[in-house]
């Protein structure tokens, strides 16, 4: 399979076509915007935290397929996690996206591991990581995040 086909593999295209947890919910406790203005990725995270857990995560916005799929997968993986467990996964995801790291998957990341193919496209890593930094910003009470 070519690198391009690995990047746009079915799982990623499917999440792009049918994004999970997409759209503004009726209520939320935390929110933050991820914005990569130069490439045109914009994602708004709506988060409800209760009992130290990420009870509900929704996202909205206009982004490329990589950013959309990453957001969709992230919300599926992260919903229900304790804040500490999410933090562990965020750190693992950063390692997964680190071009200097050769590890191809982490058990804790599940389907999110499909995004490892983005590493072959250094200019696109920021698309995959944007929603994660936006969720991190929402958790910590910051309004915005960017990965450009």
């Amino acid at each position, binding site marked *: 399979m*070519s690198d*391009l086909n690995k990047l746009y593999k079915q799982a990623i295209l499917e999440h792009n076509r049918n994004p999970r947890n997409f759209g503004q919910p009726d209520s939320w406790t935390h929110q933050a915007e991820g914005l990569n203005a130069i490439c*045109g990725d914009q994602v708004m995270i709506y988060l409800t935290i209760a009992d130290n857990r990420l009870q509900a995560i929704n996202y909205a916005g206009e982004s490329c397929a990589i950013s959309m799929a990453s957001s969709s997968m992230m919300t599926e993986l992260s919903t229900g996690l304790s804040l500490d467990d999410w933090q562990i996964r965020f750190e693992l995801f950063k390692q997964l996206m680190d071009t200097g790291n050769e590890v191809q998957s982490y058990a804790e990341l599940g389907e999110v591991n499909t995004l490892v193919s983005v590493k072959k496209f250094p200019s*696109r890593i920021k698309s995959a990581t944007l929603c994660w930094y936006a969720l991190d910003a929402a958790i910590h009470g910051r309004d915005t995040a960017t990965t450009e």
Partner: protein
Amino acid sequence: MLREHFPGLNKQVHAKPLVYLDNAATAQRPRAVIDAVNDYYLNHNANIHRGVHSLSESATERYEQARRSISRLINAPSEKDLIFVRGCTEGVNLVAQTFVRNRIKAGDEILISHLEHHSNIVPWQLLCEQTGAKLKVIPMNDQGELVLNELDQLLGNKTKFMAVVHVSNALGTINPIKKMVAAAHEKNIPVLVDGAQATPHLKVDVQDLDCDFYTVSGHKMYGPTGSGVLYGKAEHLNAMPPYHGGGEMISKVTFESTVYNAVPAKFEAGTPNIAGGIGLGAAAEFMMSVGLDKIAQRDQELRVYAEQALGEVPGLRLIGTAVEKSPVFSFVIDGIHAHDIGTIIDHHGVAIRTGHHCTMPIFQYFGLAGSCRASLAFYNTEKEVDVLVESLLKAKAMFE
């Protein structure tokens, strides 16, 4: 046309022949430019306007010869009216801070247009912050053309300066600059024209346009990066204070006071980009040897061909459909983000730009975060346009 003169085009990307359609970002350079830069470093490497030794003299001669070449390219009355700068951005900032700043106060207005590159917006916003002046904007219509029947009204009693783009980098629109300058001059309002995207495509005659200032970007017109010139009418340049202080721009310095050098040296503090200036002169000579009319004609042939070819891609929408247009095509495709298109067609060897192209207000008008932009130069071919179209169809197939 003349592809063999551009060694940078002869490349493979992802094992496919490069199709370089990002000329509005930066053009490829002809061998003549690369050779001129190398020749300076290899055979004439010395500082200019300083030493009495032979090498310094030959370097100075080449640098000043380049100024004369660029002066002929844009038909300036004298090469002394040309200031070497790093590019249009520096040219605009120079004019904002040394010409306009002295003649503007709180409540006055500076007029720009909706089609401006950020580099012809932000320097004026900075000036407005410094002085309390206001920025006014000539509006744009759905075709990406300026709405000029409002120009007379916008050029009011408080307008002290107009700064407008000749050719839009994002949409390709060619503005009727001569008419716009005349309208402003009727009310004694001086005008700067941002020519970054005009000189690569059009025959520019600053005397015919009668503009007060004109900026030229070297790397967009096949010259080196970090090179450019600002043309200004002599009466203005002579009256303006220096922009940067330093060596070269002085004729006498004591600790009590400094006497400035004559124009253009007054505006060229420090050792300049000597190789870049010489390379830009070579680019001007190259363009004149090809023929400016011939370049313009070839550009329009490509524009017509590409407009039709892109129109046949299902779901593709062109952004900017002005009647007068250079071969620049901004477009979006239903269901695929520009960034994905850029990555996918790169794998077919096609280089385009994606994003807002440093013109965020244009895309705010169209309700878009950005677009794909294919920008052509005279050395592109109809076959390359076909490769672009085929690669776009493949991108669409991938997402279906």
